[in-house]
């Protein structure tokens, strides 16, 4: 498992797109260093003011960049599964004494760990700068690293499913774009917007069904910002959104999606072996 994870890191580092992201992250960090000045308002700020300002900067940054960070991370990792399934690569991997679910799980974990470390670099640096400048050390912002990684992992499960079925990086990215920026936000606001326009119970049921079925990257962000603001988080219902909570948006869905990936991996090999492994037979 460690070998495949290590190789996934090498694959990621070999991609120029990741270098681009790191340069971008470094620029964001530099901006934080030079622009955020806690002493600017009438001399030295009180701790309470600093706390409020730090919370505002942190939640503001997460609100603006959350979906973009997840989407860019998905773009850069979306090719991992299709490239692994290429003829000549997958044959050799499967010929080794490793189980198929383990190959897939290791690849998945490698991508997730890589994104986790990228977030440690970006959000960890931001936290350090804000804390040093304000004197207010709030560990809750650091938890955002976990939440954003979990949100990424949930979305990446979908990339894995699409990668396994279509072997197409482009399709995986397009579907994720649609989910992150169109469908999921629409479903999140279904009670406030859609249901006021639609009275048909079947349509409402479909919207509800899709809402609970599909991943919710936005709700992960709500949990992260709620924690930063010191709001109480319920295991089943978050304060940010009365219908979803920590457990329902993270653990359960993540587990369910990944189990689905593993199931699909096995089904594909038993039912449609030609699709992946027998592009030509002789």
């Amino acid at each position, binding site marked *: 498992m460690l070998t495949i994870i290590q190789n996934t890191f*090498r*694959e990621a580092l070999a991609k120029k797109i990741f270098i681009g992201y790191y340069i971008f992250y470094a620029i964001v960090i530099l901006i934080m260093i030079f622009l955020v000045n806690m002493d600017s308002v009438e001399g030295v700020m009180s701790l309470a003011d600093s706390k409020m300002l730090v919370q505002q900067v942190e939640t503001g940054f997460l609100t603006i960049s959350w979906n973009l960070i997840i989407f860019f991370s998905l773009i850069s990792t979306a090719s991992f599964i299709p490239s692994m399934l290429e003829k000549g*690569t997958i044959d050799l991997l499967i010929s*080794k*004494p490793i189980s198929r679910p383990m190959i897939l799980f290791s690849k998945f974990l490698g991508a997730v760990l890589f994104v986790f470390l990228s977030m440690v670099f970006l959000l960890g640096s931001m936290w350090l700068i804000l804390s040093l400048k304000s004197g207010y050390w709030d560990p809750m912002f650091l938890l955002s690293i976990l939440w954003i990684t979990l949100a990424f992992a949930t979305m990446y499960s979908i990339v894995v499913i699409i990668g396994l079925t279509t072997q197409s990086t482009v399709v995986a990215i397009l579907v994720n774009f649609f989910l992150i920026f169109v469908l999921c936000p629409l479903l999140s606001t279904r009670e406030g917007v859609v249901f006021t326009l639609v009275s048909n119970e079947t349509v409402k049921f479909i919207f509800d069904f899709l809402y609970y079925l599909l991943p919710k990257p936005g709700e992960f962000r709500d949990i992260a910002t709620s924690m930063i603001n010191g709001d109480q988080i319920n295991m089943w219902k978050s304060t940010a959104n009365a219908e979803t909570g920590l457990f329902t948006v993270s653990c359960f869905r993540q587990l369910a999606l990944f189990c689905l990936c593993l199931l699909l991996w096995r089904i594909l090999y038993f039912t449609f072996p*030609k699709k992946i492994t027998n592009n030509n037979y*002789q």
Partner: protein
Amino acid sequence: MHVIETQNLYKEYTQKFSKQKVNALNDFTFNVEQGEIFGLLGPNGAGKTTLIKILLAITFPTNGSAKLFGTDVRNYKAKTKVGYLPENHKFPSYLTGEQVLSYYGQLSGMKAGADMTKRIDEMLGLMNLTQWRKTKIKKYSKGMMQKLGLAQSMLSDPDLIFLDEPTDGVDPIGRKEIRDILAQIKSRGKTIFLNSHLLSEVEMICDRVAILNKGDLIKEGNVDDLTKAENIFAVHTVEPISMEIKQKVLAVDANAGIGEKEINTETGTASLNKIIDVLRNCNINILSVNQKTNTLEELFINVIKKDNTN
């Protein structure tokens, strides 16, 4: 215990658009013993690659069973002592030659450390790739990639090695080197399962071959036995054979083929000795007497033609 054992293997594919069923393997049963170099021959679409993929559990048979070292191939642990060089293999292009070997070595169960490094050095040296070890493989030529693939398949010192077109893209000197390496592996009691289109190469390397056509096993046996043409002899003379001598030869063997300085007989040693007597009585000097053998290529073409006619 056989190294490879298959029982009534049957593989059927359904074509994507026409939905037509294609039999890639039909009731295929064979065994491979330890220390053999076993060659798999057949025209394109005969089922060779399908067979290798089934043996490595890359694809699964529609019916029948396959075992490696007595363990069902569906159990991934059966592949612990197996090396594989696929046809048109694709290594991660961002790795160096050394990293490729390290990566696949670890996937084969080797532990990273001094022993593995030593083994990698050994393999790179054997393939004349030492000076390229730190070079990214995207800069490698096809021949170098093939050698690296071969090194990868042998790295963990497996007891059974599957080689799918191992000399593809390798120059004649490289081919000779690969043949020598395979002979060396065989001398250490390892088993090699070879799939190659180069019949002359298979003939030189393999102990036993199986010929497949349209999914059927149509011939299997030792290379020497299959290529031997027991009763066919050729006599070469120094002087040209005159019409008078031709008549005398035809009198002892009516079916003898007579050229200007060559007589071919297909009726065994008795007839051969009579022809030699005739020639010597006529004061004809004999240059050589050879027992004829079919090349594997001739055998292959004859067998496939016959099977296609049937």
